[in-house]
């Protein structure tokens, strides 16, 4: 081992393997999601159609689930594990436990993926074309729900792993402040535990038993509300690793320091508190939920703008600080001094810029009365392709160019290809998302295979529907090219030989450090308690009212599709498979429990 090298893989060789596995799982999902993305882009816009329109919805389900569940969350567990080990400067407590949660996640998403992809093959009587939101009475094969449960349980164990590291570290360092990256991981994990309760209840108590035929009906509004209890905070679960990168990596690659550690902590605390009690803003147009509850969700949502606005300030200020360290001057002239040729910096900066645009369309979505105009239209698709599709995805791809050498010990295959890749993504998404937003204003619906209707046409005040379609398709093609470049770099790097000249495994220092932050900020129990209370306030009455109105199991509605004749026959087999999987998961946990208890 070279003495000069101080990369992550040198200090944490065992953890680097897990992080690498998580990254590769994430990239595999990104590749699948990308393929399905271009298929549906060309189909929807009618530039090239080679699938049956009914299969479009299977493609769409796969695109959604693989990208927003597997791609984002596998990447998250990778960098969170890196952040914990690096900032606490200690190995994970038990690497077998770490592998166990990774494997559980991998098995889970594979099962769900099989259920989705089986929808393409008519001879297999299995499908899960229910989209990422799986609204009942649309029903998926039980395997889909079982896989999701295993995946989420895997993330819960990952969270436990990070907490164990922190508890052990705290025992040894009782008087020290929580290092910022660890603080970010812990608050995000707490938010995740709270958020996933909703989807866990929806699946375990209602959807899974229903798909197995154990109960006949579910209350569609109830399971939908429980989904959004989880469905909004999950977007912050995708976003928080990107935020973490903007706080602790971007200042460093800009050449400076993080502007303020205390405000970074405030931001993450606000996300912990406010992420969950806002889910009803996805249901502004749902019948059966009183306007008052929607108003409360709207108010919470608006206050959730605060941490993002604070982040915008801190990120820009940190970049300016970096630029001035590099010799930048003037009110805006300092921008020229930033390292725009560094793909890690350029990717993150462009992602941040897109996120600002996404913030504006998000403010529109959050305004409950203007939401009538855009709800469930193509506008919304434009919005989240800026948030998760760019702010998150582009940040992840950009930091990959820093992380890959750290976890493989190999130099990046090509920095110029990497730079081209991030710029191409930015350009592609500019075309695609602006056309999606504009299309939404005309009333073009989202989630629709062929939004060309017999009885009427959408009327564009400026431009034309054809022009919008062309922009979406062009954007989609550029994004696909960008992905090809990304994978070329990932594969090229993996095939590279060992490099002796890797940067050290470090993150940004701060101008105003943790000593400036009030101690109370580190009181995770307090913030968790406040978050729980807010959730109780925001959700108890809506949920009780929904159950009171529609009943726990809802009205008499048939599951859909009803064509799965052999599902009852399969139920038995699947129940066994499910139990077996749970048991093996249980065993895996048990084998590491001695390590936990010690």
């Amino acid at each position, binding site marked *: 081992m070279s003495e000069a090298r101080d990369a992550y893989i040198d200090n944490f060789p065992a953890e680097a393997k897990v992080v690498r596995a998580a990254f590769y799982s994430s990239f595999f999902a990104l590749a699948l999601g990308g393929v399905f993305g271009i298929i549906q882009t060309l189909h929807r816009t009618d530039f090239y159609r080679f699938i049956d*329109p*009914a299969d479009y919805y299977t493609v769409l389900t796969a695109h959604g689930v693989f990208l927003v569940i597997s791609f984002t969350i596998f990447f998250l567990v990778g960098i969170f594990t890196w952040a914990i080990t690096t900032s606490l400067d200690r190995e994970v407590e038990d690497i077998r436990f770490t592998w166990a949660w990774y494997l559980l996640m991998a098995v889970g998403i594979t099962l769900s993926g099989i259920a989705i992809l089986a929808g393409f093959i008519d001879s297999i009587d299995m499908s899960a074309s229910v989209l990422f939101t799986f*609204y009942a*009475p*649309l029903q998926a094969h039980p395997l889909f729900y079982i896989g999701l449960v295993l995946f989420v349980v895997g993330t819960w164990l990952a969270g436990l792993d990070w907490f164990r590291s922190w508890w052990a570290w705290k025992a040894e360092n009782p008087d020290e402040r929580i290092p910022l990256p660890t603080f970010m991981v812990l608050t995000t994990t707490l938010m995740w535990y709270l958020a996933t309760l909703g989807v866990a209840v929806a699946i375990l108590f209602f959807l899974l038993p229903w798909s197995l035929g154990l109960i006949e009906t579910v*209350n*569609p*509004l109830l399971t*939908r509300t429980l989904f959004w209890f989880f469905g909004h905070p999950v977007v912050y679960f995708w976003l928080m690793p990107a935020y973490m990168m903007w706080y602790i990596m971007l200042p460093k690659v800009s050449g400076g320091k993080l*502007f*303020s550690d*205390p*405000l970074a902590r405030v931001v993450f605390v606000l996300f912990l508190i406010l992420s969950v009690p806002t889910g009803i803003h996805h*249901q*502004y*147009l*749902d*019948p059966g*939920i*009183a*306007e008052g509850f*929607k108003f409360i969700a*709207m108010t919470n949502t608006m*206050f959730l*703008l*605060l941490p993002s*606005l*604070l982040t915008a*300030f*801190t990120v820009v*200020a940190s970049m300016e600080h970096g630029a001035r360290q590099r010799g930048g001057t003037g009110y805006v002239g300092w921008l020229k001094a930033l390292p725009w040729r560094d793909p890690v910096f350029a990717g993150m900066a462009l992602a941040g810029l897109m996120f600002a645009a996404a913030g504006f369309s998000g403010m529109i979505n959050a305004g409950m*009365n*203007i939401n*009538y*105009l855009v*709800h*469930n239209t193509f506008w919304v698709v434009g919005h989240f392709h800026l948030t998760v599709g760019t702010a998150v995805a582009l940040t992840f791809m950009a930091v990959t160019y820093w992380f890959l050498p750290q976890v493989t010990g190999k130099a990046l295959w090509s920095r110029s290809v990497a730079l081209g890749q991030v710029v191409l993504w930015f350009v592609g998404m500019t075309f695609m998302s602006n056309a999606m937003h504009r299309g939404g204003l*005309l*009333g073009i*619906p*989202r*989630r*629709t*295979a062929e*939004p060309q*209707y017999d*009885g*009427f046409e*959408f*009327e564009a005040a400026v431009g034309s529907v054809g022009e919008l379609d062309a922009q979406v398709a062009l954007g989609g093609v550029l994004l696909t090219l960008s992905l090809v470049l990304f994978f070329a770099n990932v594969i090229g790097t993996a095939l590279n030989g060992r490099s002796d000249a890797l940067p050290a495994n470090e993150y940004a220092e701060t101008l*105003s450090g943790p000593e400036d932050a009030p101690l109370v900020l580190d009181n995770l129990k307090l913030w968790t308690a406040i978050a729980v209370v807010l959730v109780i306030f925001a959700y108890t009455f809506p949920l009780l*009212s929904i159950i009171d*109105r*529609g009943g726990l199991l*809802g*009205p*008499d*509605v048939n599951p*859909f*599709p009803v064509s799965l004749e052999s599902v009852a026959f399969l139920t038995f087999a699947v129940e066994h498979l499910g139990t077996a999987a749970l048991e093996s998961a249980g065993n895996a946990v048990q084998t590491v429990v001695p390590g936990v208890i010690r």
Partner: protein
Amino acid sequence: MNIHTYEKVWLIAALVLIVGFIATITYGSVALGITMVGDQEETIEPSELNDDERFGEPRVEQVGENEYEAYVIAQTFTFYPDPIEVPADSEVTFYVTSRDVIHSFSVAGTNINTMVIPGEVSKMTVEFDEPDEYGVVCNEYCGDFHHTMEGLLHVVPEDEFDMTELSVEADDEIELGDEATFDVAVENAALDDLETTVTLEIGNETFEETITVAGGETHETTFEVDSSELGEGDHDWTVTVDDYEESGTLTVVEDLEDEDETDDGDDEDGDDDSDGDTDGGEDDE
């Protein structure tokens, strides 16, 4: 806590922005009256919509001078009624429910947009100023043919809008010497009484009757025509009420075969402007 001055300014500006947003939305709700789809409506059993007073017959109904109510069912993969016709310069309250999965009822290019959830009724009151034609789409994925789910909303000029519906039941074939009967039903879904004339033309004969149909009621008239006056052979007939017309052919024969003579006119032309036959014949549309 040590916060930089600029950051304090930014923080305050951000809070002002947030409070400003909340204020504008509150203004929209309270002063402009943009209310949200809410929980005002009772739940409903999706499997029993056919027997429901409101949704048994999806329709537009007049409830005030310029006020109408539209009862709409969304189901895979259509909307009922289709098209929905309402007058310009009116206020229409939509009640929309689903028979099966979650749909939406969304009028393209407007802010008429609601989720439609089985078991729940979405209520929305909308003002229509100008005559126009709008497409209605379902914007929530509802199954394999989701993309084919569409409807039309016609806002017609006030003077062209009426809510009269005509349906006629008549014999196809009768024996010479028997009376041919024409059961004419005129429905008036408007609020005001309708004074009009029902005209039956058959062969060279014309029958007329002046009727008054009370608001929200259906008036039934029966014409009886002596077939010996008509003579043997095919006779075309037409029933007219205002701009509505129903027509058919009556065959008078010497001797009826041993056939079931209750066979009705079976609406062979099933034309669109009388799609609401009160005899429930629309279920197979």
